[in-house]
């Protein structure tokens, strides 16, 4: 069973002469441990697609399955729980809460799911330490570098142990070194922890980490190709 399955997904805005086909009849499947890269120019529909896959936007037509659950039929009020348990988000601009330190930012999803602050912080610490941030636990976002912020964002995405990580332009605001480190982390979460990772980006550097690449234009998938993962991935090579 695919972790994420999109079938004939369409998203239209407006009507008549003003109709915009942001996503037009897109189907795809992502398996456990797979890294799918969606590439395309700005306005091609990749962010809209990832937003729908993240249960943040209802498609005009088609259906989406996450771990076999058809999310398009779910009521709005159950979607937050689904996002908490099944999906982790990584954003281009990190989107950390400015008043919280790294530890608390990473702990937020666990607290939202009802865990005690103490337990959530323990788990957040464990995750941040794994991501190499042991010295930055009590730093506010304004005191962290771009790469550190993105690692906190990844820790927040991983903390509830979701099946899917959806990353939108995760390296866009990072230099080469930090971009590489973030790609390695996303690769590890797929290859070592078996999560499905979907990345929307036009950063050519990410082609190496992806197992599969889809090219979008005007809301449609225009091309598919294999990524450079197998030769690039340190985890797969060592295995």
């Amino acid at each position, binding site marked *: 069973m695919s972790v994420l399955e999109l079938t004939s997904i369409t998203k239209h805005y407006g009507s008549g002469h003003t109709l915009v086909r942001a996503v037009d009849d897109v189907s795809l499947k992502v398996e456990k441990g797979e890294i799918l890269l969606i590439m395309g120019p700005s306005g091609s529909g990749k962010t809209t697609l990832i937003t729908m896959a993240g249960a943040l936007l209802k498609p005009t037509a088609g259906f989406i399955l996450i771990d076999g659950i058809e999310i398009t039929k779910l009521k709005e*009020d159950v979607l937050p*729980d689904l996002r908490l348990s099944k999906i982790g988000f990584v954003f281009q601009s990190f989107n950390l*809460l400015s008043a919280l330190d790294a530890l608390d930012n990473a702990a937020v999803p666990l*607290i939202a799911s009802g865990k005690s602050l103490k337990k959530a912080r323990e788990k957040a610490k464990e995750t941040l330490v794994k991501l190499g941030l042991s010295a930055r636990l009590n730093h506010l976002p304004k005191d962290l570098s771009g790469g550190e912020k993105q690692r906190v964002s990844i820790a927040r995405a991983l903390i509830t142990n979701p099946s899917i990580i959806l990353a939108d332009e995760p390296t866009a605001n990072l230099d080469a070194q930090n971009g590489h480190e973030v790609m390695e982390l996303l690769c590890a979460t797929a290859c070592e922890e078996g999560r499905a990772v979907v990345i929307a980006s036009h950063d050519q550097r990410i082609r190496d980490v992806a197992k599969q690449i889809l090219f979008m234009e005007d809301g449609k998938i225009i091309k598919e190709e294999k990524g450079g993962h197998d030769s690039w991935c340190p985890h797969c090579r060592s295995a």
Partner: protein
Amino acid sequence: MFFIAFKNLFQEKIRLLISAGGVAFAILLMMFLIGIYNGIIKAFSAYPERNPAQIIVSREGITDMFHGVSIVSEKDAKAIQNTPGIDETVGMILMPAFYEKDGKKQDIFLVSYEPPSSLGAPWDIVEGRGIQEKNEIVMDAAFAKKNALELGDRINLVERDFTISGFNKGGSTILATFAFIQLEEAREILKLPEATNFLFASLKEGFDPVEVRADIETRTEGLSILTKEEFIKNNLAELEETFLPIIYIMVAIAVIVGIAVIGLTVYTATIEKSKEYGILKAVGVKNLQLYLLIFQQAGISTMIGFLAGIILSFGVAYLVGEYLRIITVEFTAGTFAIVFALTVFMSFVASYIPVRTIAQIDPAEVFKS
């Protein structure tokens, strides 16, 4: 989510200070107004309240101390004294007077009593003693302090010189202050040898004031026979009618100011952090949890303001008591309960618009960088 509310608030300390400060002043205003009202009520009710009389008699149609002229004759007084259940009766004469100092006139309620009876007598002599001789007077302690009067001083009231024999506590009101003289002397001043304005009666143990009142009514004519509770209520009625609406309006203004201050600061903070609320929604925080977060933020600000306001209120009440003397600010458990309830109300109302704003945030916006 409480810790997020807490950290959000303390991230912007100046805003928190403005918000809590606004609430504190609203609380101060509410506490002060209600406290002054309580003080006025307490001062006005102190004389009848502390009077051991259980039945108060006046001329028919006169039901309080401040309206109309009441005359109770010696004949009526005797009939009342002979009513079963009556223990003791004492007549009381009330005269408006004024004390002039530095060209300023200060109103005094000159009331009589008949030592050694405690009916209508000064109830809390804090310095000196009660009246033992003619021409002696017991003044109010706060009034005396304000006017630098001391024991043994002579003061001129109603064209007669009195020597201060003692100071009674708690007899100052915003209208006038109570001073006590002998009944015989009051009769001389008013040339009323056979009558008084009011008659105070205490009851023997086991007698019910309402039943004794009914009995007195069958034995006398043309009198108002009131229980102590009725007399107190009547004395306060005009005050309540005059002051309460003003107090209500002022408290309502304070509540509106509080809501406006807390509402604006919480709303501004919500707008500034709308993207962060979108992030929280995106990662899976429910709307209800976010509403709670807003209520908590408003609640923490208002509670800080509440505590600061209460401390300020005590400070201001102390200063008023120390320097104005005549006005007393009285805080009761009821005052705290009312102000606390209004604070919680302010917090809820102030959260309404920010909560609506949060409800409209689209979590999908977080993907727009």
